[in-house]
């Protein structure tokens, strides 16, 4: 008679099982922060310890004992290693990062405008590239084995192999120098001002980065779209007699975009490194160009901060990609 009442199952679940998405975000964020701390230690040790004496390395043969001592003081080299790291590490959050060793300006004041310019470049290129990749990928999938599919496959194979600067030089020859002069070859934006003041300067850098990332997104989108078009639910939609455009845009496309998001995220990651060469070529005043100049001048405070920023972008973009991909595929939200 007595019916054993089973306890409500939700109670027995751990919090992390009830909210798998939050648990994942928190876990990944913690791992990401730990990775960044390790990255910061590596960057710090690499730039402070390996060369022997950084002050001596910067000044080179022209150094006098007095100048070396002065620079050591500026870099904090006269303090203990752990102490130095701590001062630098806390500086990452407070903005007190010391001064550039090449021009004496504050590190943050120098990097901030560059950071904004680079962010504009990355997001404009990333968004245009993603949309273009999705559209071209869907087109290739709809006419599978058609002429567009074949041409885009060969083009993708070629373009994915090319270094960014080869594409940039080709664009410069075509649009800015030898063949035609419709666009500026190098940006004349002085460091410290913003890119959107002169949108024409953005065209070639953005075009270069778009050409680099589109093939990857296009290939992935094509593969995912073919899979979606051959799936049962698309077959069902067709059999119901839905219009062709409705089947493609409402049934197939959203399901094909989900796996593509991961690749789009990877492409944003690529952009963090890809901007270095592209900014340098087009004289675009972003952090990539700043990094190249800093490496040339051995401006260690700038190098340290730039590398940490790029690594942070990398780590958090990775987490963001995973979360968005998870949100886009509901069935994967549960079992992890």
């Amino acid at each position, binding site marked *: 008679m007595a019916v054993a009442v089973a306890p409500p199952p939700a109670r027995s679940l751990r919090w992390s099982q009830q909210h798998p998405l939050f648990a994942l975000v928190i876990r990944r964020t913690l791992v990401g922060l730990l990775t960044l701390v390790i*990255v910061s230690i590596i960057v710090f040790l690499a730039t402070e310890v390996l060369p022997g004496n950084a002050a001596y390395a910067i000044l080179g043969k022209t150094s006098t004992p007095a100048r070396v001592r002065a620079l050591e003081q500026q870099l904090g080299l006269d303090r203990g290693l752990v102490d130095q790291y701590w001062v630098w590490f806390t500086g990452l959050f407070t903005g007190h990062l010391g001064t550039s060793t090449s021009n004496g300006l504050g590190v943050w004041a120098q990097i901030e405008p560059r950071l904004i310019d680079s962010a504009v470049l990355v997001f404009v290129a990333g968004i245009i590239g993603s949309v273009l990749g999705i559209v071209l990928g869907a087109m290739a999938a709809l006419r599978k084995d058609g002429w567009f599919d074949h041409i885009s496959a060969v083009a993708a194979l070629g373009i994915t192999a090319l270094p960014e600067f080869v594409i940039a030089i080709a664009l410069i020859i075509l649009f800015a120098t030898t063949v035609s002069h419709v666009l500026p070859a190098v940006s004349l934006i002085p460091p410290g001002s913003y890119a959107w003041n002169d949108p024409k300067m953005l065209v070639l850098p953005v075009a270069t980065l778009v050409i680099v990332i589109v093939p*990857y997104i296009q290939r992935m989108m094509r593969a995912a779209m073919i899979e979606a078009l051959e799936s049962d639910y698309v077959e069902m939609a067709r059999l119901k007699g839905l219009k062709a455009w409705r089947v493609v845009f409402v049934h197939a496309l959203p399901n094909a975009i989900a796996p593509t998001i991961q690749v789009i995220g990877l492409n944003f990651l690529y952009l963090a*490194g890809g901007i270095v060469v592209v900014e340098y070529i087009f004289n675009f005043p972003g952090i990539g160009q700043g990094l190249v100049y800093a*490496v040339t001048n051995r401006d260690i405070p700038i190098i340290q901060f730039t590398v940490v920023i790029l690594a942070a972008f990398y780590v958090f973009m990775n987490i963001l990609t995973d979360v968005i991909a998870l949100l886009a595929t509901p069935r994967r939200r549960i079992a992890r």
Partner: protein
Amino acid sequence: MTALAAPTEPQEPAVRSPRTPRRQWLAVLGAAARTTRGRVGLGIMLFIALVTVIGPFVTPYSSTAIVGSGLPFAKPSAQYLLGTDVLSRDVLSRVLDGGWVMLVMALCSTVFGVVVGGAAGISAAYLRGKWDGIIMRTVDVVLAFPQLVFALLFVSIIGPKLWLIVIVVGFTQAPAVARVLRSATLDISERDYVKAIELQGVKPVKVMWSEILPNLITPLMVEAGLRLTYSIVVMAGLAFLGFGQPPPSPQWGYMINENRGGLIGGNVWAVVAPTILIALLTIGTNTFTDAVARVAIGIEGRPQEALVLNEAAVAETTLGETA
């Protein structure tokens, strides 16, 4: 309830090829070379290899000597077939002489990256547990740096030494190799013949070397090809930025940079010739690698999935590290 349920059968992975024959890698390369893509890729690679190897011996002038009028950017003529560069040096001689160092460096760093990454990936998957955690977290940390930025970091400290560039670029290639080989090893180390060898008390290092490694030859070849392409891309990029061989010696990457001023009204070939050679080289290695990947996936016995799988896999493994 659960106690009464039948114990779930361990899922037997469909054993495709029990042991990989010894010369399979040759068979794969041969099959790849017979496909259209393979033929094109191999042809381009051989052409560039010939240019870089024979080139230094057939330069019409010294590649570092100032020739002609001393004025920059003379147009191509019968005397100077590709014209002269920014310092009035013969472009053809510099192009012929400017590839082999980069190619040797790229090959060395690829070998370094594949060996380090392969050893890390196989050990992580085979040893499991603590080692898996340590190795794969290290991989995550290295992957947090964009490749070129990681190389720039060390170049800024030690200076643009060639051995340093080889090691650093190779090191940044290792994580991708490690990830691919780790997942391949996870599958193989569960097979019966590996278990049988383990039960005989063979040491882990020997199991990995003589039982697991021979079965990873095809993924290793594909990875090596991809890594070679990206090594060339990163090396050429570093050279372009001025972090390569010191200035007077010719190198394709830096030639493009130093002669950019000649694009307007000057000698376009000083930029175009090295650009085309670098482009051909990377396109050649990438195309041949693609042919190998397609053949390798076909051999695994899933030809119908080959296309989709390959594209997804190539997209996933090659991205992110290109930076």
